[in-house]
């Protein structure tokens, strides 16, 4: 503001573009004002200013804070510092901009005790992961409710010395004591640090995402399930899953589980996987009848031996690599709760029977995606007819559909649209 005195002293502009205030000042009339004088923005109540600031992105807010001391004070209101996402990127490894180091310093000095919902987005460089740990170690006065460590490209947290990472993380675990949501996928977290987590946050922990944390053992995660009875959402890799874990999650003292996400990843070709007893799954379903089981498979075709032999309560199933016709046939027989099926690739034998069986037996199926597969047009139409309008997502690559004597490629979409009750086309890829 160029005109008038700012509250408490000189204006802090150094050629800073205020939000158009000087011109607007002269034109705005206060409702019910008797005199035709310009409005004094100093008199804007702080609550209103706070609401306005909440709509502004951080950068604009920061500019606004330099207008005058009053606005600067509002800028630093604790309420505005509850959520923060630290973006840590190096120019050499990312196209994204990073949170300014000065801003980071300011947050740590003035606002660390206001922070409640925090996430770190790091790129693939080790420096970014180190910077994240650095900040974490300083959050001593923090009582975080949410913490997310997110790698946007290669998982750089894994490249840090394990002890360095663990000590930074445990600062938060120990000081927060009210962690409700924790996302630490692709990090070197280990069993002892999980114990620390549990020791301090067992009453509050509701969500834990730790896919691909290779230093954690089944015992480590079992400890979490045993102590954190409020846990509602859990994501982990298959090697951590055990019958004991499922039983712990279904114990009487445990709340209903909402969502369990399991990644089944092959480290070496020909790897063998343990099986989970049907009784353990049954216990889960009895305890939490509404829970969603999301399973992502990244296996070679010949590694599916132990899977889909008995009924499994999976709701969302993704095959990230080629999966055999035979396994897809077993899916139809063993997954009555299936809601979404996504198949990246299968091969060159038609999946007609398998799809029909899935339509018959998976009565809750509402989403299906097929990539590099083959289905004859008639079987596909049959499938859609049987599922009917419950199919809200139908994403089929154009190459999947094989024309036969009943339907060609040019008319199949009308048939399918008819049965779906909306206009539908297969997904296309450029043929240029």
């Amino acid at each position: 503001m160029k005109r008038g005195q700012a509250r408490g002293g000189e204006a802090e502009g150094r050629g800073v573009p205020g939000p158009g205030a000087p011109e607007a000042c002269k034109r705005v009339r206060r409702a019910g004002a008797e005199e035709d004088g310009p409005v004094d923005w100093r008199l804007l109540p702080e609550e209103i200013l706070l609401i306005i600031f909440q709509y502004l992105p951080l950068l604009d807010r920061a500019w606004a804070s330099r207008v005058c001391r009053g606005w600067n004070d509002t800028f630093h209101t604790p309420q505005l510092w509850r959520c923060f996402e630290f973006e840590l990127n190096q120019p050499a490894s990312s196209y994204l901009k990073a949170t300014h180091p000065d801003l980071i310093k300011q947050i740590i000095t003035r606002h660390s005790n206001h922070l409640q919902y925090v996430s770190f987005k790091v790129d693939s460089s080790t420096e970014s992961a180190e910077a994240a740990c650095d900040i974490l170690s300083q959050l001593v006065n923090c009582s975080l409710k949410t913490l997310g460590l997110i790698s946007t490209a290669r998982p750089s947290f894994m490249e840090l010395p394990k002890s360095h990472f663990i000590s930074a993380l445990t600062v938060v675990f120990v000081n927060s004591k009210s962690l409700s949501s924790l996302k630490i996928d692709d990090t070197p977290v280990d069993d002892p640090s999980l114990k620390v987590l549990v020791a301090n946050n067992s009453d509050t922990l509701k969500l834990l995402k730790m896919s691909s944390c290779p230093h954690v053992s089944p015992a480590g995660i079992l400890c979490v399930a045993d102590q954190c009875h409020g846990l509602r959402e859990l994501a982990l890799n298959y090697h951590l899953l055990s019958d004991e874990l499922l039983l712990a999650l279904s114990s009487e003292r445990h709340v209903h589980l909402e969502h369990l996400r399991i990644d089944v990843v092959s480290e070496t070709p020909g790897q063998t996987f343990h099986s989970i007893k049907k009784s353990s799954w049954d216990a889960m379903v009895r305890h939490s009848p509404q829970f969603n089981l999301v399973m992502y498979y990244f296996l070679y075709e010949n590694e599916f031996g132990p899977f889909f032999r008995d009924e499994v309560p999976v709701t969302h199933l993704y095959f990230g690599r080629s999966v055999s016709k035979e396994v897809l046939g077993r899916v139809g027989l063993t997954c009555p709760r299936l809601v979404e099926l996504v198949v990246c690739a299968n091969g060159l034998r038609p999946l007609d029977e398998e799809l029909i069986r899935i339509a018959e037996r998976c009565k809750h199926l509402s989403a299906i995606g097929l990539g590099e597969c083959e289905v004859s047009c008639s079987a596909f139409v049959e499938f859609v007819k049987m599922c009917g309008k419950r199919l809200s997502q139908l994403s089929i690559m154009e190459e999947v559909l094989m024309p036969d004597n009943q339907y060609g490629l040019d008319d199949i979409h009308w048939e399918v649209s008819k049965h779906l009750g909306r206009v539908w086309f297969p997904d296309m890829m450029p043929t240029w």
Partner: protein
Amino acid sequence: MVVNSVHWFRKGLRLHDNPALQEALNGADTVRCVYILDPWFAGSAIVGVNRWRFLLESLEDLDTSLRKLNSRLFVVRGQPTDVFPRVFKEWNVTRLTFEYDSEPYGKERDAAIIKMAHEYGVETVVRNTHTLYSPDRIIEMNNHSPPLTFKRFQAIVNRLELPRKPLPTVTQEQMDRCRTQISDNHDERYGVPSLEELGFKSQGDRTHVWKGGETESMERLNKHLDRKAWVANFERPRITAQTLFASPTGLSPYLRFGCLSCRVFYYNLRDLYIKLRRRSSPPLSLFGQLLWREFFYTAGTNNPNFDRMEGNPICVQIPWDHNPEALAKWAEGRTGFPWIDAIMTQLRQEGWIHHLARHAVACFLTRGDLWISWESGMKVFEELLLDADWSVNAGSWMWLSCSAFFQQFFHCYCPVGFGRRTDPTGEYIRRYIPKLKDYPNRYIYEPWNAPESVQKAANCIVGVDYPKPMVNHAESSRLNIERMKQVYQQLSHYRGLSLLASVPTIQEEAEPPMSDDSQASSSTAGQGSTPPPSTPPNSEPSSPTAAAPGTHIQRKRGLPSELTSKQKTKVKHANQAKGVEQIIDEKQ
């Protein structure tokens, strides 16, 4: 009044179906056909030797054809802005004709030339023949916004009348009416340069798979049609190893340079279909290749930032990794995955790869394995691929990397499995990576898994004679699907569990296209952020001395678009998925 015409060849390197050239000849006393080329630029631009060779061959072919008509091609060295004032004076030019270029950079350049021509009192005539339809017309029919899905695009094209019929080729008679003065030192001053003159030491593809020029393109067209007729089948062919090799009937580079008119191709296909099938009208799918090309030209015509992520309103902002070393391995065919390496080798050697091969390598570079920006891949293709031009290349890369056009990202092409399913015998690998030719079929797609005895017997040890695989595909694809999901869920505010529903759908598909009705509100979803067209919707921008159109024109590189503010680059979607929940907190 004496009429001295100059026809300016840029693309459209042909004498058939060339209305602009016909206009140059129409009632003219003299005519000169020019191509403007800056040899210095040749050295500095990222254009590989195969593309230059193809271009030079096309120019030679034009020159030869013009010779038969008692004329010549004038290859003028320099930049258009310098060349035209010079030749306008020297040749007393009164009329300048050229084919319309719909790309933003082209429009800007042409606007400047038209303005300059006006100042010199030169009439300009422009004709739209590089695409089947006028991109502006399609945009107009789609509520003043380019269609963002191919389905929508097809729906609009379905409502259009057929493309304008192609014109026949220039005749001797037409040329006789206008003289071309050829000087004795024409070859010296205006001859087609050689590769050496442009600074290339090598000759590029010695096997000469793709020969440039209109003559070659017509021969290929005939072979292409013959083959279709022989097969009597217009359906999608089964993919085999043969499909991957360069086909003697392949036409894409000729369409890109305009050696073959897209309308000639269109009508030939159409007529053949009607004759063989005895049906009245062929389905749109018959013209698949042509329509994809058309789609991307339309999508890019008003978007100067179409070829980059930042500042591009239709491109999803994805946190790609910056990794020059990994990029080099991919570009040079040293990834350790024979399928990928063979494809990149064929690309570098010959300048063309099948579209499935393009999907495979594009997926590998971006969302499949390396998580490197599509812009980097686009630049490599720009250098090496004969049929890559600005719109189609950028558009395809955005499509294949799931950065635009509302693509599902779940289907990942496995660098081992996809290749093996396409060509089980490994013939393609053996041809382009001879080092691996003695590997048995079982291991040729994944040599690192072969036991030592097999590697030794094949005389090719992984890690010594052939690189180890640069990534673990299972791990990379797992990571990357998470990344894509993160990006898309943030975009669509989708917090549910469905992988498919993470990608927002867009309203435009459900609604019929409006030609002039103002029910724009229902179709603003997903389209609000594209800039309105800068030129008034003209179906044929043929007006002579109109002033430089529009205010939206920006340089190809340099000045940032008006839309660089972070908020505007986020694509706005109306989320159709059921059960959308707003983010609770997490971000301020």
